């Protein structure tokens, strides 16, 4: 297996000298999904953004398909890497159809091709093009918007997909639907995905591997089962914090809880 994304001793320090990424080395195998967990401020998003060079590392090297992104043509690189962010990513003045086809439009592809492709993708993410193609973001629900965002990220057939808490703003039921949809889609598409999330369940459900960042350092890079079984204190703390509600509800007597 080849590494589709590789981080080699990647560091990033802010202008004020705060170290957001501290010598991170990580290889993401082709066609797999890696979920990146960590607290807010642990450097997850920054790490993701070094891949399409929205952030330029202050040290180390990021490789996509074996080539360093350092001297890559930014426009080409970004068009070849799909990017999905939380909530606000859709352009309010564009219909779903146009937004999804925007990268193709930027590449100067003919309109007919753009429309065909964007209808195809809308259908793939579970939105009937007949009903949704002409809608503006304000006419879509949160979940539908994220579907359009995902379709847009797939438009230029990128081999790599970056997702920054794509379902973070959704209610749990919609979120679960989206996770199912994404899982189905990824099974058929063979994309390499880097998924930033707060949600351990989401990471376990979607990730082939789970990476935990803490204060800019890579703490773990494990398979989901290994991650859950790990005795490493930081991992245990994370897992415990996440499952608190479940445990207290399961162990506490009902009467006591009511009182």
């Amino acid at each position, binding site marked *: 297996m080849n590494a589709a994304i590789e981080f080699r001793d990647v560091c990033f320090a802010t202008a004020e000298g705060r170290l957001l990424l501290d010598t991170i080395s990580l290889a993401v195998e082709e066609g797999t999904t890696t979920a990146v967990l960590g607290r807010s401020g642990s450097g997850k998003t920054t790490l993701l953004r070094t891949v399409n060079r929205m952030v330029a590392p202050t040290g180390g090297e990021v490789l996509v398909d074996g080539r360093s992104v350092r001297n890559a043509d930014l*426009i080409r690189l970004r068009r070849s890497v799909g*990017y999905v*962010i939380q909530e606000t990513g859709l*352009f309010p003045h564009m219909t779903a159809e146009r937004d999804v086809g925007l*990268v193709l439009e930027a590449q100067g592809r003919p309109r007919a091709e753009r429309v065909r492709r964007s209808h195809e993708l809308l259908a793939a993410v579970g939105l009937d093009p007949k009903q949704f193609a002409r809608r503006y973001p*304000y006419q879509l629900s949160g979940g539908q918007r994220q579907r359009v965002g995902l379709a847009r990220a797939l438009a230029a057939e990128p081999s790599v997909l970056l997702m920054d808490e794509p379902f973070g703003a959704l209610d749990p039921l919609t979120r679960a639907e989206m996770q199912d949809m994404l899982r189905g889609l990824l099974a058929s598409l063979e994309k390499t995905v880097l998924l930033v999330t707060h949600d351990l369940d989401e990471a376990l459900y979607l990730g082939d591997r789970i990476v935990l960042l803490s204060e800019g350092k890579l703490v773990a890079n494990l398979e989901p089962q290994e991650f859950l079984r790990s005795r490493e204190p930081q991992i245990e703390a994370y897992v415990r914090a996440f499952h608190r509600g479940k445990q207290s509800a399961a162990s506490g007597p009902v009467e006591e809880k009511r009182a």
Partner: protein
Amino acid sequence: MSGFLAEYGGEIATLTVEHLWLTGAAILFATAISVPIGVWLTRRPGWAKPVIGVANVVQTIPSLAMFGFLLPLPWLGERAARVAIVALTAYALLPILRNTYAGIQGIDRSLIEVARALGLTDAQRFFKVELPLAASFILAGLRTATVTCVGIATIAAAVGAGGLGELIFRGVASVDNRLVLAGAIPAALLALTCDGALGLLERWFRVPGPVSSPSAAR
């Protein structure tokens, strides 16, 4: 009344056209100057305050004084219409400049980030994202500028540039209220028409959404 119209109708029409041409030329020039500068300021926000400040100061010069200042200048002074167009352009700068700058600055930063992350070039980001999102805002500035200029253009008659102000000045000189109204009413109607027409255009370019005011749309 009908006798008055028969006598002055043709002149009112000619002067209205002249008025419109003075205003239109000034708005065209002001747009050509202000929009690019406004866009440039969004790239160099440090310059925004001084540049918009200068436009602001220009705005405070009394119009009669402005026409007076420009009249003795070489080339400009040769034709009164030139003086009028330059002066009106100067007054139209501020609203267009300010709204262009504020309209683009006001766009949600995350949308600009997304445009970059999708691999849009700088030009594509401007024409496909920033300009359409700021368009109704820029047009609102254009509308303010136009209405202001239609009003100020009546004073251009003081330096002999023509326009509906000519009837007003003549009416005042000869104490003939009918002449004053013959200038004032078409000028007011012209302002209202421009306001309405540009208002429609502004609405046409408004970002689709449930909110109706352009400032609330972001």
